[in-house]
């Protein structure tokens, strides 16, 4: 049986990779994917702790997260499509119309 710490480590690594992806990548699609990675890191933590504590609520939350993440991806992708239509790029550094 794999010890709990490894799961925790994996979830932390996944979450950290997600954060790094959000901060350093410039393509909006990659940022969206990185956010998914962060969500999955969090999901893994929920499931692990649910098993550790012996309480099913954590697993229930994961279902919600997955459902909301699907909706989020749908909205996020359509925003990116509209962005591409308007600006011809999905580089977030080019999206700076709100500057003073």
């Amino acid at each position, binding site marked *: 049986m794999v010890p709990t710490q490894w799961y925790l480590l994996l979830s932390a690594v996944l979450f950290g990779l997600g954060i790094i992806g959000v901060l350093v990548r410039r393509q909006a699609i990659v940022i969206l994917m990185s956010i998914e990675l962060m969500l999955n890191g969090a999901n893994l933590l929920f499931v692990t702790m649910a098993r550790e504590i012996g309480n099913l609520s954590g697993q229930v939350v994961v279902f919600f997260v997955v459902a909301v993440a699907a909706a989020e991806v749908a909205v996020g992708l359509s925003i990116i499509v509209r962005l591409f239509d308007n600006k011809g790029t999905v580089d977030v550094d080019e999206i*700076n119309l709100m*500057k*003073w």
Partner: protein
Amino acid sequence: MELNWADQLWLVPAWPALGALLIGVVLPQRARSLATSAAIAVGAVALAFVTSLILLAHLLVAPEWLFERAYTTWIQAGDLNIPVGLRLDPLSATMCTMVSGVGLLIHIYSKGYMAHDEAPARFFAYLNLFTAMMLLLVLANNFALMFVGWEGVGLCSYLLIGFWHQKESANKAGLKAFLVNRIGDCGFILGCLLIFVVFGSLTFSEVLSPDAIHAAPPAMLLAIALLLFVGATGKSAQIPLYVWLPDAMEGPTPVSALIHAATMVTAGVYMVVRCAPLYSAVPQASAVVAWIGVLTALLAGLIALGQRDIKRVLAYSTISQLGYMFLACGVGAYVAAIFHVVTHAFFKACLFLGAGSVMHGTGDRTDITQMGGLAAHMPRTSRTFWIACLSIAGIAPLAGFFSKDEILYETFISTLPTARILWVLAMLTAFLTAFYMFRLFGLTFHGASRMPKREASHVHESPPVMTWPLIILAFLAMVGGFLLGWPYPHQCHLLGAFMADWRPPAEHGAEGGGASGGLPLMVLLAALSFAVAVTGSGLAFWLFSGPYRRVQEFERRLGTAQTAFSRKFWVDELYGYTVVGPLQSLGNWLGHFVDVRIVDGLVNGVGGACQMLGEGVRRLHASRVRFYAFVMLGGAVLVVAYMLRDLMF
């Protein structure tokens, strides 16, 4: 149904008010011609005059000489209850008849005088409004309503002094009159407030009853009397607030005659006489009134000697005569004061209208040193002016003699400690009055003409619409004193009998002329004042109607004194340095330093600080999405660290 005239008191001020409304508001612009507006204005004042005559007749046959009607409540707040009430008693009936009568003559005269003016309708509307306000002032039965009239006449005075508003000097004069009067009005308001505090009412019948005055603390009475007198010095041009009246001569001459000689300026005298019970109860205040009066009379008489402008001589003469009236009030001779108000209205209106006629005939010339010999060209003006001069100089049996002699006599026998000094000063002023009036008369109408030849041939007599009021006023100035003052000697004469309530109690003056001095003294004093008047007028007439070289020689001999007279004792300059200058500097400092630097600085500083803050903060919103994400992460880390602080440390 029989008309009860006592209920119709309100008609008296309502007629001219209606006239002002008709001319000023209702009449369409095209119809505002001289003929229409003059007809309405004269008609309105004539109706007011007739109404006051009818009321006077009804008052005389009424069992008690008092009509008092409260029409509605004006202000009701707590203990304060101010009715819109009018009161007709011998005092207000006398004033009312005088104001509307003299006002009527001056309205008629104005039709001729304003014939070539551009805005006759505006003039007549103001004149009617003034008459309405003046009648309201004398008919009011409480201090608050009286104050409405008081301010109303002040407003009309301002409007009419500045009537020729394209002239800068006229605007300045109007402003000066208004501002100087504000000082006086401030005293009047404070006096009214104090009256309410002490008496709990503002109605004359409650405040001025002997019981109420007896019950009030003497110190309060003194304060009230002095504060009200401050108001009177403003409106009636006494020391120290007389400086506005000479400048008020910038207005059209009928205005000077109506407002600044015959009616409005006597409002202060009327008010003091109205408050006679109050002033008799505080001898200190009466002494102040008497001294201010006699000093004003003397000062203005001296200044009048040095003036070269025909209207300014008359203005200073008005101030001087008003001083006489206050002297009379101060020594307790209230009947004599009102007597002089009435006779003064006759002869001074006549003099001013005569001056207006001179200006009309000579093409707006006012400098008497540039006139001379007008008698030949303007016989009616000259003759009426002569009669009025004799009257004001106090030559028997003209009106001025009776009233002035009564004041002098009452001063002589008064119980004030300084009565004799007052009397000497008043006699001196009587001499001055005769002297400066005949200086004016001689320089204007007699001697050789000093006008340029070409202009001298244009001099003409004024039209009948102007000379008839002159003739009527001259007639009144001739017989008015004799009629009202009969039977001579004093105290028991017609006006005295009518105004019996205002006659001094026995210890103050002499009841029936018996108590102090009696008939011989009275005749002696009358002869003395007559002699002084004759000497003054004769001397002045000899000096100033002769060759002009004699005049110049005389003025050269006077030397410094002449300069002091003609420069008005530098009083305007003194006020300029001590009051007007510092106030203006203060205003400048407040406007240019406090407002610009401190107030504006504060407001602009707050704005500037916000702007700078925004300038700094907006750099964060640089539209760098990944930077936002980084800050968000930092924030999240901080929040988590805060929540986990117990675990970590």
